[in-house]
């Protein structure tokens, strides 16, 4: 925008936002309703006016799904080794270090065991804010180890996906994590242990094309973007607009790829009931 300058400041989009004290309030991006953080947390980060599901991370999902203080994290400090010494406009190792600092996370998934309405389960939760929830060696390895543990301890596996897909900066090794996690799920299935995939906004690319689509049941949160190819790529390829509601949870339900769309408030009980019915 170097070639022109606004002569006078007649619109200031920031002014209204600044009325709110920082960090205490959040605005629903669908209906613009404003909530106090505490209020939002109580409502499991769902807008009480329009039912919009805010994007949340592993810390919040652990609260949503597991009994209080029952989560025991495993392989917490496993982190990226930058196997390709990758550099684009920035060194991958610097990018990782920066994101680790800003998010307080080690990578885009956290794994562990915990109790869900008293039942022991193995849980993996992805964090979209860690490089778009992308899957590199760490995500693949942590999920693989979680499944190994589930097989050993005879636990059901639940994976909450929120991911842009495989991580570019680990090249083919990221791609192979799709095969690795799927192969482990095949072994879990041979043991007749249940696997529940929960797809949240957004779940795309290599994550959808591996463990996220392989649940014994696939559950999606309402109105999540769930796709293989992202909408922008498809639009570019076919050169026309996409139909309304394309690649939403409801769209996938209609086309037979999701078993049920469940609001966040019902998530824990739905999974719990399913596990009870198949046990």
């Amino acid at each position: 925008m170097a070639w022109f300058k606004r002569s006078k400041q007649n619109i200031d989009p920031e002014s209204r936002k600044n009325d709110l004290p920082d960090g205490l309030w959040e605005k629903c991006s669908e209906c613009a309703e404003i909530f106090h953080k505490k209020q939002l947390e109580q409502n499991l980060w769902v807008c009480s006016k329009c039912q919009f599901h805010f994007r949340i991370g592993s810390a919040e999902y652990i609260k949503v799904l597991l009994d209080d203080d029952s989560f025991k994290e495993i392989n917490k400090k496993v982190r990226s080794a930058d196997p390709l010494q990758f550099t684009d406009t920035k060194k991958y190792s610097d990018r990782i270090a920066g994101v680790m600092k800003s998010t307080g996370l080690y990578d885009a998934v956290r794994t562990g065991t915990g109790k869900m309405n008293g039942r022991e389960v193995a849980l993996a939760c992805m964090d979209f804010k860690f490089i778009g929830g992308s899957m590199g060696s760490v995500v693949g390895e942590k999920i693989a180890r979680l499944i190994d543990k589930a097989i050993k301890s005879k636990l059901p596996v639940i994976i909450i996906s929120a991911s842009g897909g495989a991580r570019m900066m680990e090249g083919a090794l990221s791609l192979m994590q799709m095969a690795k996690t799927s192969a482990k799920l095949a072994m879990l299935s041979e043991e007749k242990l249940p696997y529940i995939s929960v797809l949240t906004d957004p779940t795309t690319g290599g994550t959808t094309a591996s463990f996220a689509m392989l649940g014994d049941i696939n559950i999606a949160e309402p109105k999540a973007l769930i796709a293989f190819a992202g909408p922008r790529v498809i639009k570019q390829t076919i050169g026309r607009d996409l139909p309304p509601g394309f690649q939403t949870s409801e769209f996938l339900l209609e086309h037979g790829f999701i078993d049920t769309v469940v609001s966040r408030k019902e998530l824990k009980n739905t999974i719990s009931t399913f596990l009870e019915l198949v046990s």
Partner: protein
Amino acid sequence: MAKTILEFEKPIAELEEKLVEMRKVSDSLHIEPEIKIIEEKVNELKESIYKNLTRWQRVQLARHPDRPYTLDYIYLMTRYFIELHGDRGVKDDKAIVGGFAQLGDQKVMIIGHQKGRDTKSNVFRNFGMPNPEGYRKALRLMKLAEKFNKPIITMIDTPGAYPGIEAEERGQAEAIARNLFEMSKLKVPVIVVIIGEGASGGALGIGVGDRILMLENCWYSVISPESCSSILWRSWDYKEQAAEALKLTAPDLLTVKVIDRIIPEPLGGAHKNHQEMADTLKAVLLEELKPLQKIKPDKLIEQRVEKFSQMGKVIE
């Protein structure tokens, strides 16, 4: 067949052209010594160019429009090939072909991506970009091979799974995921060969096996250099850098143990001599199949799962 000459091959092509001209007049002018000198020069040039290819140049070779494709290999390597069509659900995807064939003394199932040679056949083959029914056809054929206890050979050569509305509606992601899941527990040996382009999930969708082989001038990665450039550099102009950063060539992938073996191509690439390339590949496949067939199914599956489990690198 129209010859396509890549930018970095031009010096060779120019000299070769000169040679042809000189040979035409050599009888009357007695210039055999000069011809010999130029011939030597051509060979030297070829050696120096083809032995020092950049990653981006290899990507170009992998996409060379004269390269042999799956059906070429099938016709050059096997006998009694019967192509099997359809996923039994939606349609027959022309971007993936497959069927039983006799390879040397082995009866095998061969499945691979298929590109077209010209505009018309490329449209017919959807440029080698499968829809979900392609992956489902592939899985149906693999299950058939498993039923009759025949080893499976898959050939990867795709710019990616097709990103279209119908592909999404019919579950592109599910189709690929299902293949990864099912291929990891097939009870028969699976050999995967990357024969051209190996773009992301669209390639991996038929790429889980006991041995992963790769022709010398191919690429295999999570994304194409062009798309990687557009996302990470926010411009299409950094494809060479992206190719370097992605480490997507056969030697790179052997180092990080994504592949098991590199199959040499004729000097200048597989397209220079289809028959020679097919003969080399056939010999390698027969050699690779033998030990795999001695392994019991349970052990085979266990080793396959373990093989993919080992891929990747983390810090504890």
